[in-house]
C-alpha cells in the first residue's frame, strides 16, 4: 500500500508541475496583462505610466525564468503574490477555500443522500412507475442550468416566502456542530445551515440526478450478479441482500465517479458562488483570469489541482478498504 501511495504522489507531482507549466505558457498567450486591465478604467493613464508599472510589477521577465523561479518558490510553499490584491496568493485562497470546500462537501452529501435511496429503489423497481418518476426527476435535474435553479430558489424561498436568506456565507457549519452538541445551541447551528441550504441544493440538484442514475445502473448491474442471486438462494432477507451484498459492490464504480465529480464541483462551484454571493475560490479564480492576475491564476489552478489529486488519492485508498481485491497488486 505504501509504495502505491508514493507512486501516486510522484505522478501527482508531475501532473501538477505540468499544469503549472501549461498555465505559465497560457498566460503568455493571453492577450492583455494586468496593467492593461487596470488602465482600462483609467483613461488618464499614459503609455509611460503603464510601462513604469509593468517594470515595477516584474511583468517584463521572460516566461521560462518566471516559471522556474515559480516552481522553486511553490516547493517552498510560496505561491506568489497577487498583482491586484497585493497579498500572498496563498492567503487569499486559504480565506476562501473553506467556504468552497464546505459547500462542495454538503452538496455532495446532499446529492448522495438523496440519490442513493432513489438509485436503489429505481433499480429494484425497474420500469415501474417509481422508476419512471425517478427518470423524470433525473432528466429535469440534469436539464436545469444550475444558475437558473439558483435564481428560482432565491425568488421562491427568499423573496416570496421569506424562509431563507437570499445569499451569503455566515461561517462554517462543521465548526458549529460541536458547539451545538455540547452546549445545545442548535439555534446557532441553524443560523449557519440556513445559508447553506439554497446554494447546496442548487449545486446538488444536477449531481443528485446524475448520481441517482449512476447508482441505479450500477445496482441493476450488481443485482443480476450471481453472488446476489446466491445470497437470495441462501435465504438472506431482501433488505440485507440489497444493502450488504448488492449495494456494497455497486458503489465501487460510483465512488470513482464521485471522485471526479468532487473535482468538478470545486471549479463548478463558480456558478453557485456567483449566484449566491458565496466567497469561494471559484469566483476568486474567475476574477484572477479576467484581471490577468497571473500569480493568483497559477495559485488557484494549482491548489484546485492538488485538491483534486489529493481527493482521488484518498478515494484510491478508500477503494482498498471497500474492495479487498484491490489490496494486493
Amino acid at each position: 500500500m505504501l509504495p502505491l501511495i508514493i507512486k501516486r504522489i510522484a505522478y501527482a507531482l508531475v501532473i501538477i508541475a505540468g499544469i503549472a507549466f501549461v498555465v505559465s505558457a497560457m498566460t503568455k498567450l493571453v492577450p492583455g496583462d494586468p496593467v492593461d486591465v487596470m488602465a482600462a478604467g483609467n483613461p488618464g493613464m499614459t503609455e509611460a505610466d503603464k510601462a513604469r508599472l509593468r517594470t515595477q510589477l516584474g511583468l517584463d521577465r521572460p516566461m521560462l525564468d518566471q516559471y522556474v523561479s515559480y516552481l522553486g518558490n511553490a516547493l517552498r510553499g510560496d505561491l506568489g503574490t497577487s498583482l491586484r490584491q497585493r497579498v500572498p496568493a496563498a492567503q487569499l485562497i486559504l480565506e476562501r477555500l473553506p467556504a468552497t470546500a464546505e459547500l462542495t462537501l454538503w452538496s455532495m452529501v446532499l446529492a448522495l443522500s438523496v440519490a442513493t435511496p432513489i438509485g436503489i429503489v429505481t433499480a429494484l423497481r425497474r420500469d415501474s412507475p417509481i422508476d419512471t418518476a425517478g427518470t423524470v426527476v433525473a432528466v429535469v435535474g440534469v436539464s436545469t442550468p444550475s444558475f437558473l435553479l439558483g435564481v428560482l430558489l432565491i425568488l421562491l424561498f427568499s423573496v416570496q416566502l421569506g424562509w431563507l436568506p437570499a445569499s451569503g456565507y455566515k461561517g462554517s457549519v462543521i465548526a458549529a456542530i460541536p458547539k451545538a452538541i455540547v452546549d445545545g445551541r442548535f439555534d446557532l447551528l441553524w443560523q449557519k445551515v440556513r445559508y447553506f441550504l439554497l446554494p447546496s441544493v442548487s449545486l446538488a440538484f444536477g449531481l443528485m440526478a446524475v448520481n441517482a442514475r449512476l447508482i441505479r445502473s450500477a445496482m441493476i448491474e450488481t443485482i443480476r450478479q450471481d453472488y446476489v442471486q446466491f445470497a437470495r438462494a441462501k435465504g438472506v432477507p431482501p433488505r440485507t441482500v440489497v444493502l450488504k451484498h448488492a449495494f456494497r459492490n455497486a458503489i465501487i464504480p460510483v465512488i470513482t465517479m464521485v471522485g471526479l465529480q468532487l473535482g468538478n464541483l470545486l471549479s463548478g462551484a463558480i456558478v453557485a458562488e456567483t449566484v449566491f454571493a458565496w466567497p469561494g475560490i471559484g469566483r476568486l479564480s474567475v476574477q484572477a483570469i479576467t484581471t490577468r492576475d497571473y500569480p493568483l491564476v497559477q495559485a488557484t489552478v494549482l491548489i484546485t489541482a492538488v485538491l483534486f489529486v489529493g481527493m482521488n488519492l484518498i478515494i484510491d485508498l478508500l477503494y482498498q478498504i471497500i474492495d479487498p481485491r484491490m489490496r494486493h497488486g
Partner: protein
Amino acid sequence: MSTPLLQVHDLRVEYASPRGLVRAVAGVSLSLDRNRILGLVGESGCGKSTVGQALLGLIQPPGRIAGGDIRFENRSLVGLPEREMRRLRGNRLSMIFQDPTATLNPVMTIGDQIAELFRWHRPRMRRKEVQTRVTELLERVGIVDADRRSRAYPHELSGGMRQRVVIACALALDPALIVADEPTTALDVTVQAQILDLIRGLQAEHGTAVILVSHDLGVIAETCDDVAVMYAGRIVESGPTAEVLARPRHPYTAGLIASRPSITAPDQVVRPIPGTVPDLANPPVGCPFHPRCVRAVAGCREGIPALSPTREEPRHAVACPLAA
C-alpha cells in the same frame, strides 16, 4: 414408498422482454425422491437453469411463474409468501451456482458468507458456535487450514476451492434438496472430477436429493440416477440415466449423444445437430425440434407432442410420436 420429496407439475415460467414474451419453461413436470440424483440436460437456453431457479423461488421480474405447481416436502411452493419461501431457501433447499468466481461476494470473507446462513436460519446460535460450524464445513468440503481460510476473500482462493466454499454453503444446514446448476462447467477438468466426487460423496452421506443441471452428458452419465433432457422449455425425454443414454428415443437426445466426442472411440465421427436453438420468444409451430429434426415429417408441425412412457420401460418417457 411415500410421496416423493419433490413433485413439479406443468411448471411454466415466462419472461417479458423487449422482443416479446419468452416462455423459458413451457410445462415441465418431474418428481424426485430423497437420496436420488436427477440430471437435467440440454443446450444453453433450453430452460434447465430456469427450472432450478423456479424451485428456489428465485424467478424475478420481468420473469414470473406463469403456471403449474411445485410440491416440496408436502407443501406447494408456488404462491408461497416470500417470507416462508425465504425460510426454506438455503435451509431445506439450496443451490450451487455455475461459476464459483461470480457466486461468492468479492467484498466479504468466505467465512462470513457461510456464517450468514446460520445467522438468518439459526438466529439463536452463538457466534462462537457458528465459527466452529463454519470451520467444520470447510474441512468437510476438503479445505485444509480451514480456520485461517475462513478469513480469506474469494479472490484469494483458486476456482476449485471457491466451488468447495459454495458447496459448503449449500450443505451448511443439511437441506433436503440441492439444485446444482452446472457446478463444474467453469472449472478445470481435473478439478471437475474432484468436485463431482465431493457432491456425490456428501449426497450419499446425508441422503440429500440433488438436481444436477448440466449441458454435459458425460457429467450426467457419471453422476445421476435419472436424467431429463430438455429442449425449448420442455422435457423431451426422461428416465434412468443408463437406459436413456443407452437407448435414446428422442431424435434430440440421440443427436446430443452423437455430437459428443468419445474418448473411448476417438475415431468415431462427431455429428453436430444442424441448426440453432429456437427463439423462445417466437418458437416454431408444432414440435419445437422439428426444424432441426432429421426425422421430421409433416405431422410434426401440428401440435406439441406430450411426454409419454415408452412401452419397453415405463420409467423411460419420450415426447416424440415417432419414437414412442
